[in-house]
């Protein structure tokens, strides 16, 4: 397009104006991304949400208090009593270090923000960064317009909001930014072939490894793309520069993170990257030799190498496969395996399956979390194919894989969200591009076609220049390569058309009609484009409304404070913190508190008490022990807890106010996990005809287990009938006394009940004698029996 010669100065002015405008838009997008996540602070308070964030918060507190070296060496004796946990070596430190650095920076500037405040606002800040990274990535793929659209979409996509509202201080908050930014730098390197960006890419990958276990997605997706490029004959030196340093530097850096360590070279998750690393070198060698040799010589060489190389390759691969296959899990971690085989977890690891966010999503959740993006994605994929470049093929690969993963685990919807935003951004921006151009083209009337055409080409060149201004010459040629092909195709069409025209009109001015003719296929009628623009704007408006609703209503509840709207006004259920505050002030510092693992992180962080199990479910046996205790009768449970030195038992009970996610509803998982390790706990004992019930039809095992008793102790006296509002039924066993436990605290709405283990002296005399005689009698003969009852004997 021969536009620049018409007016160089105005176009550069426009260029500059466009730059400033897009920077301004980006700032606004950042503000939007930050502020849409503040609903939780406005509606509730500035507080850490849910379960895992409390652990991260606690780690950050430790880091800010004790410094980085103590942090690496931190052995936490407050969890997994009596095992403890090496926090420094088992935690992804990215989030903690980020927030810690932020806090340190602010405090060294004498801005006295508390660690909690910094932690609460880390996620919104990083979602602004993530939307900027999306802009950069999409710009590399499809230009600035698509980039801005994608960034705006990402700033408010509900799926991402659900993980990054203020207070949701979790790894994903920074990891999504790191993920997108790593992808951006990969594409940037691929487009420029610059070693500088390749180095940055490795560092970004390192940050991602620090932040989240999801880094394996990167280290598998990028090799897949490289392989795709090689297979489709798109190998270039840029591809080599984009990939080889990433593998070498990235793996070295990843091995520096304690939690990854040698996994970076040993586990199968990383295997693909090394395989592709070998392949790309072979390919590079082949290309090099091809350059040196004449075609005939080359053919001979290929024959030679193929015959020898294949044999070597086969043996190497066979050895590798044998090595991998010899390990029981085939070298894959449980979570990764459950990704590859969606039924794996439910078959073998009930702990992973018991977490609701590890379940496959339902269809409505796609609509809820992605909304219109779910429909725009196919259009985006088509747009990516129109000129298929290295970058757009990467994005296509990204969306395809992430759609699969999100289908396996609802939690990975988060990885899909950026891909969906990028695709929808491309689709929307492409559609707007066509529609507005055809409007611009037709509105001034036919007499001014030429003028408008000139303006149009001018604007086109502005966009092109914008791209070109920052990028090197080589990249330009890369970028335009596919589009050139396209243009040539268009031109062929054009030629045909022109020939036809010439037959009709000999004297027609070919030059002026040329560009006009080129546009013609893309031009839509004015009415159609106006309506289409209107509909698109409407669609996007719906999306915005939905996102704001999702941010305000669906995803901003901190889950430790519950509210309900009653006719008298807002009612607040602050029972969890009531219980944790009670524990922290009115029990001894070294007391051990047992609860189901969901409440472990919160108990250590808010009550500062030692817990037996927590949300880092690394020891199945330990969790099974607690599960067994909860599903055993009172005496056996007392013995288990006593052997663990537990002083208090905490249960969550929603029957009085109708809080559905309480321990009685989670109880079957306790039975399953406990039964998985201690076979005397059998799930059918707790089910009547395969049904889980707590009413008068319930099995005696169920009605006598500790969980039932602790939940419903003296519950019948509240209303005289013992009507459970969650299960919507009257409880089965109404009047009973506790013999081995005593109630020490129950919160205002009975949601948390804390019991203390009675000391042995207070037990009924006869029973003590019995148990004593039992233990004193020959251990060997009774051991099998006692072991059944108490796994810790």
């Amino acid at each position: 397009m021969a536009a620049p010669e018409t007016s160089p100065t105005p176009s550069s002015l426009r260029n500059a104006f466009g730059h400033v405008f897009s920077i301004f838009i980006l700032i606004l997008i950042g503000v939007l991304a930050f502020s849409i996540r503040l609903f939780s602070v406005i509606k509730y308070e500035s507080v850490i949400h849910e379960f895992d964030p409390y652990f991260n918060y606690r780690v950050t507190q430790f880091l800010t208090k004790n410094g980085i070296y103590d942090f690496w060496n931190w052995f936490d004796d407050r969890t997994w009593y009596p095992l403890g946990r090496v926090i420094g070596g088992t935690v992804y430190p990215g989030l903690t270090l980020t927030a810690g650095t932020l806090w340190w920076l602010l405090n060294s500037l004498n801005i006295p923000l508390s660690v909690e405040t910094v932690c609460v606002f880390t996620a919104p800040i990083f979602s602004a960064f993530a939307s900027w990274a999306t802009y950069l990535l999409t710009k590399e793929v499809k230009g600035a317009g698509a980039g801005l659209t994608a960034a705006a979409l990402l700033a408010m996509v509900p799926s991402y909001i659900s993980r990054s509202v203020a207070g949701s201080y979790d790894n994903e908050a920074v990891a999504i930014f790191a993920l997108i930014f790593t992808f951006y730098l990969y594409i940037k390197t691929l487009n420029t072939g610059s070693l500088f960006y390749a180095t940055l890419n490795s560092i970004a990958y390192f940050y991602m490894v620090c932040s989240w276990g999801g880094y394996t997605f990167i280290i598998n997706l990028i090799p897949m793309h490289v392989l795709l490029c090689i297979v489709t004959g798109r190998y270039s030196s840029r591809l080599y520069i984009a990939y080889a340093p990433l593998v070498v530097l990235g793996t070295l850096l990843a091995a520096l993170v304690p939690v990854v360590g040698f996994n970076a070279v040993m586990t199968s998750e990383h295997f693909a990257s090394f395989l592709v690393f070998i392949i790309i070198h072979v390919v590079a060698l082949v290309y090099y030799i091809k350059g040196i040799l004449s075609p005939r010589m080359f053919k001979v060489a290929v024959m030679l190498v193929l015959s020898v190389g294949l044999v070597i390759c086969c043996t190497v691969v066979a050895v590798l496969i044998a090595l991998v296959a010899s390990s029981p899990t085939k070298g894959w971690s449980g979570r990764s395996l459950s990704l590859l085989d969606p039924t794996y977890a439910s078959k073998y690891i009930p702990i992973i399956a018991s977490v609701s966010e590890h379940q496959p999503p339902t269809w409505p959740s796609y609509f809820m979390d992605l909304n219109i993006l779910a429909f725009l994605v196919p259009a985006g994929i088509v747009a990516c194919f129109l000129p298929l470049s290295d970058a757009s093929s990467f994005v296509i690969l990204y969306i395809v894989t992430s759609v699969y993963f999100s289908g396996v685990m609802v939690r990975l919807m988060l990885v899909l969200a950026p891909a969906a935003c990028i695709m929808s951004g491309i689709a929307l921006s492409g559609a707007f591009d066509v529609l507005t151009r055809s409007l611009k083209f037709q509105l001034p009337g036919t007499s001014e076609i030429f003028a408008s055409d000139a303006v149009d080409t001018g604007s086109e060149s502005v966009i092109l220049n914008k791209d070109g201004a920052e990028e090197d010459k080589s990249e330009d040629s890369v970028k335009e390569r596919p589009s050139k092909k396209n243009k040539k195709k268009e031109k062929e069409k054009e030629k045909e058309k022109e020939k036809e025209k010439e037959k009709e009109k000999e004297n027609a001015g070919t030059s002026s009609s040329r560009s006009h003719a080129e546009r013609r296929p893309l031009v839509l009628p004015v009415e159609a484009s106006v309506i289409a623009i209107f509909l698109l704007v409407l669609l996007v408006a719906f999306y915005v409304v939905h996102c704001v609703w999702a941010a305000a209503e669906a995803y901003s509840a901190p889950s430790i404070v519950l509210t309900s709207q009653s006719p008298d006004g807002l009612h607040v259920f602050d029972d969890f913190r009531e219980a944790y505050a009670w524990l922290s002030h009115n029990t001894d510092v070294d007391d051990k508190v047992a609860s189901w693992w969901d409440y472990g992180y919160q108990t250590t962080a808010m009550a500062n008490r030692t817990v037996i199990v927590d949300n880092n479910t690394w020891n199945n046996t330990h969790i099974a022990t607690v599960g067994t205790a909860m599903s055993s009768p009172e005496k056996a449970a007392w013995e288990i807890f006593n052997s663990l030195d537990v002083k208090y038992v905490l249960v969550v009970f929603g029957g009085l106010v109708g809080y559905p996610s309480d321990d009685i509803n989670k109880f079957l998982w306790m039975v399953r996990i406990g039964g998985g390790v201690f076979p005397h706990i059998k799930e059918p004992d707790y089910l009547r005809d395969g049904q889980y019930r707590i009413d008068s039809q319930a099995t005696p095992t169920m009605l006598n287990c500790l969980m039932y008793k602790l939940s419903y102790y003296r519950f019948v006296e509240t209303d005289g009938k013992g009507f459970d509002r969650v299960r919507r039924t009257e409880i089965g066993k109404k009047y009973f006394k506790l013999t081995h436990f005593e109630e020490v605290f129950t919160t205002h709405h009975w949601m948390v009940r804390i019991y203390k283990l009675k000391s042995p002296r207070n037990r009924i005399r006869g029973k003590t004698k019995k148990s004593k005689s039992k233990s004193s009698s020959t251990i060997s003969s009774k051991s099998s029996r006692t072991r059944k009852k108490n796994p810790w004997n």
Partner: protein
Amino acid sequence: MRKIGGCDLSLVLLAISFSVLFAPVLSDLVISKVDRRVDLTSQHVRLFTTLKVENNGTDSVSEVLLPFPDHQSKNLAFLTATTTEEKGKSKSSSQALPIKVVNPEGMPISLAWYSASLPKELGKGGQLTLEIRAVFTHALRPFPEKITQADAQLVVFQDSAYYLSPYVVKAQSFTVKLPEPRVESYTKLENAKLSGSEIKYGPYENIPPFSYTPIVVHFASNGPFAVAKDLVREIEISHWGNVQITEHYNLIHAGAESIGEFSRLDYQARPYLRGASAFRHLIAKLPPRAHSVYYRDEIGNISTSNLWGDSTKTLLEIEPRYPLFGGWKTSFTIGYGLPLHDFLFQSEGQRFLNISFGSPMNELVIDNLIVKVILPEGSKDITVSVPFPIKEWQEMKFSHLDMVGRPVVVLEKTNVVPEHNQYFQVKYRFNNLSLFREPLMLISGFFFLFVACIIYTHADFTISKSSASYVAKLQWDEVQTAIQQFQGVMSRCLAIHDKLEASLRDLSRTGDAQACKAARKAADSSLKELSKELKSLLGFLQSSPQAAQILPKVDELVVKEKELQEKLMLKHSIVVDAFEKRSGGRDTESRVASIQQKITALRLEVDDLLEVIDEI
């Protein structure tokens, strides 16, 4: 009584020791009448004593001694003495007397002595009325010490039925006021009488000095025994118009310790029977116009509080997260802002802060109170005046972009009761200009940031000007400009071609051959000029190595353009010739058509080449 034999015995011993020692009469003062009233309705024991003092001796007396037994004096939080001079009928100005700790010789050591200095010496036969007000903390001992949820809380109070004094007391009485009529037991002496919730001892007459008859009252008291183990009050002054007060409480229920089960059911169903000893809420009486009130603890906001206010006060009713039973602890923070002009005043170039000392909660006993007054950065000449003795020192605090830090006046006092809630003053000098330091710092910071950005974008930070890459870049820039010029030339050529074509079209329409020829001439001349320009540009491009890759395309373009030009000229002359000769007909048309085809093809090629060059 029999339950509490232990403490009884010690009291008896004490009494014996007094009578044995029987120190010499200090002076000739005689107390003609003592009226003592003790208020036990809250956890603060408030003792009001009215003394009528007479000087029977010859020397004039300037001070009155006030002894307290040790077990009381260690709990003594507050002591004032006022005199009311009786002038005629109307009671006139009461006057606070300075009180100091003294240690007179020859007196029993198990007593703590305070002396009130009289405003003027009491001459012979002079009379004076003294009002003494003493507040004790932790003077009520829970008994039994551990109770269950259902029990009421019982406490024990000990004192003497007679007024302990180094002087002869002629007539005296002692009244004990209890919170409720329920009394477990009390020491029954002569003239002791229980009526309702009051126990009255006396009147007794002519009691010698140092008489001590212990009495014990054991009664039910379910008032809140809220004790703040530590309270840190931070008062931060901002000259932008706000006094921010933050109070960190560390609270314990100091009554009888709760043992056994806590049943929420019982507590909710029968709160005043099962859980009478627990306290649910505290009321903080904040100054009027308090704003931005918050109430939280280390794990977040506490949602159970109420706030209401009028023009004289703001009432904040706070409820701890859970009801506090005996021995239970909690901690929380309240904070509020106050308008600056209510508390900060100016006099003689100095500013002084006038604000109350203690906690806004009236039911509280504070074991250790630390008040920190954080003055704005740049304050100097700081002086503090507090109406009672305290420990005082200064610190520095860094906050909100401080450079040198804010001076902090720290005042520490133990055993604080609501009577200490008096105003104290902090005087300091402060320059108004210091107010603008931080905004200016921010402004200049951003200014320099932007300036640095501007400089960075405009300056060339290339390390070496002679490096190969830099030279290459320069050359490449030159080549680019040359190519741009080249493109300009080419497009002008093409524009001329267009003009020629247009002239042909005009010719077919109007038949003006002359105009067509003129156009041809003009085109010829301008094309010649352009070719000259082209030559110099090509020369440059050929000489520069950077243009090597682009040169073939450029050359090709030039050749193609030349060809196109020739063909066009040919066509033009043919058409014009044909027109002039009026030959028309098939022949020319076919010739023109063939040429036209070539022209179109060439034109396309030229355009393609131009685009290719453009993309480079």
